[in-house]
């Protein structure tokens, strides 16, 4: 196993560990909401767990897996060396430490402001020490992802063996991400101009355009974590800064603008890029409509910059025009995602008869997950329906968890199943992989649908129901969660059976 393979596997195996942690948290939360375990887990533990759960799930699992996969795939596709292996390992340690510290802030220091961090909740309700620990964890996470982005941009844009400054990379990035060279050529009246972006494979275009979104997200979140750190530090030093220094509405706008970029950058664009890479490889034909999908990725990037208002449809001080804009632009995601799915399915269609290998089955069900979760998202992002759905279990169930578990997670597992044999020269057991897929997918749909239907009945998210008002839905959700857990364990058994514990030890050895 070479250094590149070892690096990728270290990220992926750590990611799988965090997925397990997030899964246990999810099961515990469903059990508590079903009225079980209340004598073990109090209110503080419940909300502490709920606060760290998305950090573990998104940064521990999804980001770790994406970083590992892209550190391996991007240089391989470009036939280049990774710009800096040292920086890649630094990003591994900072991400691992960041997620760990964030987790500790919730479980040990009882920081329970939830990931929304609505101003001034963290400062008003929680001890400054807990806020400081949490913000340090958050800062480490975003330092890690910024290191990753720089490594990606440098690997993609720097000519092999040449030393150029950060300015060169930045100029290339902005020009190619937004097709500025094509715009310039059109203004100048150049005929038959081929944009620079055409010299990169579609997968790479998806990676760097997705990285633009996630870089902006990381910068925004770094800013917000810094605000939390400054306020908590000042409090610890004995002079309390007035919370009125930050306006809650402006803060909320900045937060959602930055946070929603992850949904589009990481979830939509990275996923699309991964499908564009894997599907042609798995069915043995070129991607259908390559030039169109490049434009679709650009459209997705532009749309993602203007959708945050759909998170603020219940904020009546927010101007109505912005809220309507949030709704209208969100429908743009139906168009971009619709075109992405069309290109992928048409590629498979033109390659028929197709042998459905393990990764291809995962991708097909991942597409199904995106169709379900995306449709639910568009419904809740309408100004009118948001009045009935905002902050209910619908939002977190049939939208967020379907997208993250059935959509994103299955795509990430498709990558693992596709790349593992390339990295290790050994294929995972396909029968066990099928069991993994069926259990995980059906579990995700059962759990999320039970949560969603509870939301329709009025069950709120981010709310503990001490009397178990929606227990029957939560028992069903718990059953779905257990199915997912069984799927996850099947994967672990499959991995250990195929590669042995020695591979795991080798990956984590210096």
């Amino acid at each position, binding site marked *: 196993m070479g250094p590149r393979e070892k690096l990728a596997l270290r990220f992926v195996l750590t990611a799988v560990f965090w997925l397990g942690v997030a899964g246990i948290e999810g099961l515990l939360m469903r059990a508590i909401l079903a009225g079980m375990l209340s004598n073990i887990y109090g*209110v503080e533990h419940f909300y502490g767990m709920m606060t760290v759960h998305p950090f573990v799930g998104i940064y521990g699992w999804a980001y770790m897996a994406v970083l590992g996969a892209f550190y391996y795939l991007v240089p391989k596709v470009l036939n280049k060396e990774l710009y800096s292996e040292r920086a890649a390992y630094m990003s591994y340690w900072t991400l691992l430490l960041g997620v760990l510290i964030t987790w500790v802030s919730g479980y040990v220091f009882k920081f329970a402001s*939830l990931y*929304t961090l*609505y101003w*001034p*909740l963290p400062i*008003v*309700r929680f001890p400054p020490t807990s806020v400081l620990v949490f913000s340090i964890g958050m800062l480490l996470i975003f330092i890690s992802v910024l290191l990753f982005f720089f490594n990606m941009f440098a690997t993609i844009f720097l000519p092999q063996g040449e030393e150029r400054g950060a300015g060169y990379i930045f100029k290339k990035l902005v020009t190619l991400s937004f097709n500025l060279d094509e715009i310039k050529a059109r203004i100048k009246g150049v005929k038959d101009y081929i944009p620079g972006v055409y010299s990169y494979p579609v997968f790479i275009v998806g990676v760097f355009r997705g990285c633009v979104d996630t870089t902006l997200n990381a910068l925004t979140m770094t800013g917000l974590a810094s605000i939390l750190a400054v306020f908590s530090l000042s409090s610890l030093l004995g002079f309390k800064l007035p919370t*009125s220094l930050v306006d*809650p*509405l402006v803060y*909320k706008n900045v937060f959602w603008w930055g946070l929603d970029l992850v949904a589009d950058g990481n979830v939509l664009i990275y996923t699309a890029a991964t499908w564009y890479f894997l599907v042609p490889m798995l069915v043995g034909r*070129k991607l*259908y*409509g*390559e*030039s*169109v999908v490049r434009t679709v990725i650009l459209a997705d990037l532009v749309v993602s910059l203007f959708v945050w208002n759909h998170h603020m449809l*219940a*904020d*009546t*001080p927010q101007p109505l025009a912005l809220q309507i804009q949030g*709704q*209208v632009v969100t*429908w743009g995601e*139906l*168009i971009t995602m619709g*075109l992405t799915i*069309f290109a992928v399915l048409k590629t498979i*269609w*033109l*390659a*028929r*008869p*197709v042998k*459905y290998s393990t990764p291809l089955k995962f991708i*097909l069900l991942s*597409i199904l997950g995106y*169709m*379900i979760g995306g*449709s639910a998202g568009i419904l809740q992002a*309408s*100004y*009118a*329906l948001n*009045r*009935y759905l*905002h*902050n209910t279990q*619908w939002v977190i169930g049939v939208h967020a968890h379907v997208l993250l578990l059935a959509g994103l997670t299955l795509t990430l597992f498709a990558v693992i199943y596709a790349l593992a044999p390339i990295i290790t020269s050994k294929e995972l057991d396909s029968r066990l992989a099928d069991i993994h897929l069926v259990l995980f997918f059906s579990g995700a749909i059962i759990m999320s*649908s039970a949560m969603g*239907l509870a939301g*329709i*009945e*009025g069950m*709120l998210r*981010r*709310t503990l*129901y001490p009397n178990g*008002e929606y227990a029957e839905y939560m028992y069903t959700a718990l059953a779905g969660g257990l199915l997912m857990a069984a799927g996850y364990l099947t994967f672990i058994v499959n991995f250990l059976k195929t590669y042995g514990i020695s591979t795991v030890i080798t990956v984590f050895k210096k």
Partner: protein
Amino acid sequence: MYIQVFIEVFYLTLVVVYFAFIGFFMWVTSRKSRGRREESKAEEKGAEKGMERDEKIWLVFLLVVAIVGNIVMLSPAIPSIRNVLWVNQVPEKTFEIFIENYEFKLPKYPVRIKVGQPVEFIVRTNDVTHGFGVFREDGTMVFQIQVLPGYDNRIVWVFDEPGSYTIRCTEYCGFRHSEMVVYDAIMVEGG
């Protein structure tokens, strides 16, 4: 019938249709009878750029769905938007509610409203972000808004059914968030 029922039915229908579609797609594309790998029209011509015909048709379909979807979602058919965009409802009564120390401070308990009477709720707080949600006796939500500290958070609503309504904080605001419930806070009479 509440609008939530329509959302539920619509969602479940979509799930069934999507499952059937993906299942059918996998079955058709794995069948061996065709036995031939096809080229798309553009590939046959060696074209690298531009959209193919079926892509254009699909794009038009998506655009139509998006336009129709937006029109329906902004139409007066949905009660929550009727009072905002289509009917200039002048509130006959205004209720000012203040939230402090995890408690709703109502002008009186219960708040009495008549069916069909436009009323305005102005909800304020000075501590953290809360939510103001109104729920029917069966637990389903009538409406909700966020309550931002330092702002006047307003909503005009017309209740179309008599009954007793509960108010509840719909945004997590700290460890005692779940305690922010006032049962039978609103009595809607008449009809």
